[in-house]
């Protein structure tokens, strides 16, 4: 573990990523302490520019304080990003492991299913799912998890296919280990690095997808997320640039931090380390 940390923190990109991400998480958690009242409170006239009296980031189309909105918006984005990825990774690892280890018709079945997800435009499928489950936080999380698990399954299947042939796995079989033990104690630990890297990238793309859904109005209206802030400002943008620019910047910085962390993980965990 020490070795991994030394490599991970030695390069500027992952270090910066971790720092930014930590700030954002802190901002999200401490929002109630930093700001007296919630993000929905109307504090003045709509569309006041940043720097107007008492408004660090200006007011949005309803006269609400955008700084508070940005802080609370972080909660939704992080929550959706992390939970949907955990869900997708859970399903993906399970199916990928079984298909990769046993192969045969199970593997073919999984490949056909992942192919289906490659053929149907993913975002349209996600919209249908969210429309069916009625837009809400849980429908967004379930929708994103259901649409993105094939990415993890493909990676895990690939890893299991290559590791299954390795000699230490054959040794485990000769030693009388049951399949379950082999999968979870022998193969999975060695398949973790690529899963962790894919997982970190997926948190970022899940945040982007959630913001896209709420931008199109397919999210729970009672919740304020960065995407819904941008969605609400499509017309206001023409008279008040900050209503669109600021939430967008927040999304970009968060996802960028996650991409930096992902790049750092990929480098630190990758056995054939370049450089």
């Amino acid at each position, binding site marked *: 573990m020490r070795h991994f940390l030394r490599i991970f923190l030695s390069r500027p990109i992952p270090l910066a990523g971790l720092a930014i991400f930590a700030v954002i998480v802190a901002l999200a958690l401490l929002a109630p302490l930093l700001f007296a009242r919630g993000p929905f409170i109307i504090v003045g006239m709509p569309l006041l*520019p940043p720097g107007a009296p008492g408004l660090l980031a200006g007011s949005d189309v309803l006269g609400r304080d955008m700084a508070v909105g940005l802080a609370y918006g972080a909660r939704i984005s992080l929550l959706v990003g992390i939970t949907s990825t955990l869900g997708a990774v859970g399903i993906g690892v399970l199916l990928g492991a079984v298909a990769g280890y046993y192969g045969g018709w199970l593997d073919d079945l999984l490949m056909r299913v992942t192919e289906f997800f490659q053929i149907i435009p993913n975002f349209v499928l996600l919209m249908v799912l969210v429309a069916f489950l009625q837009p809400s936080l849980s429908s967004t999380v379930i929708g994103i998890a259901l649409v993105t698990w094939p990415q993890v399954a493909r990676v895990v299947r690939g890893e299991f296919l290559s590791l299954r042939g390795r000699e230490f796995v054959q040794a485990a079989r000769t030693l009388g280990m049951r399949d379950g033990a082999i999968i979870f104690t022998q193969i999975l630990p060695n398949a973790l690095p690529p899963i962790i890297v894919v997982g970190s990238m997926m948190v970022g793309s899940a945040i982007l997808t959630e913001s896209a859904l709420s931008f199109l109005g397919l999210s729970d209206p009672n919740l304020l997320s960065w995407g819904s802030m941008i969605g609400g400002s499509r*017309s206001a943008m023409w*008279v008040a640039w900050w209503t669109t620019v600021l939430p967008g910047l927040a999304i970009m910085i968060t996802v960028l931090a996650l991409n930096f962390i992902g790049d750092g993980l990929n480098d630190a965990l990758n056995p054939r380390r370049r450089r």
Partner: protein
Amino acid sequence: MLDRRAVLGGTGLLAFPAQGRAADKRRIINAMMTDEPAHLNYPLFNTRIMQEICGNINESLLLFDWQFKPHPNLARAFEMSPDGMTYTFHLRPDVRWHDGVPFTARDVAFSCGVMLPQLNPRSRNAFSHVGEIKVVDRCTIRFDMKQPFNAFLLSLMASSAPMMPAHIYEGTNFRTNPFNFKPIGTGPFKFAEWRRGQFIHLARNDHYWRPGQPGMDGIYYRLCPTPEQRLVAMESGAADFAMADDIDTVVNSRMVANPNVVARSDAFNGTGEISVMEMNQRRWPFSDRRFRAAFMHAIDRNFLVKAINFGLGKVATSPIPSNLPYHDDKAVVKYPFDPARARALLDEMGMKPGRGGVRHRFGIMMIPDGGGYWTRAAHYIKQALSEVGLEVNLESTDWPTFSRRSGNWEFDVDCNSYGQYGDPAIGTARFFLSSNIRKGVPQSNIQGYNNPEVDALFHQAAVAVDPAEVQRHYSRLQYVLTRDVAMVWLYERQPMFFYNKRLKNVIMGPNGPADGFGSVTLA
């Protein structure tokens, strides 16, 4: 209060891109449509975009001025018997349909007797009062009423009673008649071409009966799906008209300040639309008048209009809009913004604040308007109600879900708006008559409001002949409805109508576009 324009001006964003083309001398009007109508059968499909397009094709017997007094149109003259039981119309002899067939009393009899009642719910109410329609001769037609109906003339307004060609529709299935896609009318413009997903083109009717009209050679209604796209189209001169919901109220100030554009807020007085919230009065606590009153007191409707809706509209004090006949401000019970009074009412009901100060939780079903002014109003009201301990869960929907849930009464509170169309009997009655409580049908008395006195008053007002008697009934009605808080009236909408200053004579009456653009000419 800070003058918004100064603030916007300050940010240097009021600069306008140069006009796309120097004041265009071509005699073509470029209008826009938010989405494409399914077909152009006016009575069958009566949305706003249909009124704006078919208003140029199908005409009505009468036109109405700003005081809603009737003026000749297809009917050059008309008489009403003193007891209000018979109406006789004398048609213009020289009117021809776009396909050259002469317009006769037979067309009027077919339209008012068969097609309109069958297809259009609003016409059905109006013509249900008619006993018999007699074709006296080619140019004269007489309506014998079952009982007097003083709103009968107003129900002949363009959007409620467009005259349809008998020789095209009689004996056919109105829904699948091919002419639904190439309508025939008598109006200043006739149907030319419809290129799906792009535009609908109306060309000038050279044989139009009104001398000197139409002033222009044609109209293009181009598909322009998003509000920002329509804003840019108006500013760049690519579009001459922007009607009602075309432009989001957020950028209203930018349009008003645009030197190339004329802004009119009275073009839709005829419709007299009120933005409301309907309560499902079958469910507690919405069944309790005090709760509804507290709901009204909790909302600062002046702030709602000035800030949230950027100054467009006027606080609605009565079920009948202020700029329409029979509005009586003295008769109504007023509900000023008074959170303390609201809390008192809720306490009186025994609805004490529980954990976290929350007295009651309920849902508000929103209109799927893509984050427009409806959504913003709902968000403001949720915020205002939370101040008095009422926690609101905003339910987002799409059109299928909204129609299904409102029609089947599966909601606590929903957002909506209704148009008066000139006379309370036409536009307002349908929301409060107990006879109009019909499951599965959106835009009816979905609240379940049932007050026999109101039913009787609407009936008496409709049949009264003496105008003073009619006013007395409607004043009483306005008192009873507001006393019962039969509905949450938010504000009278003032949909804007913007047109390029290269044109003039665009808005000639309270119906605005619904009366057609025959009179429009180059400025």
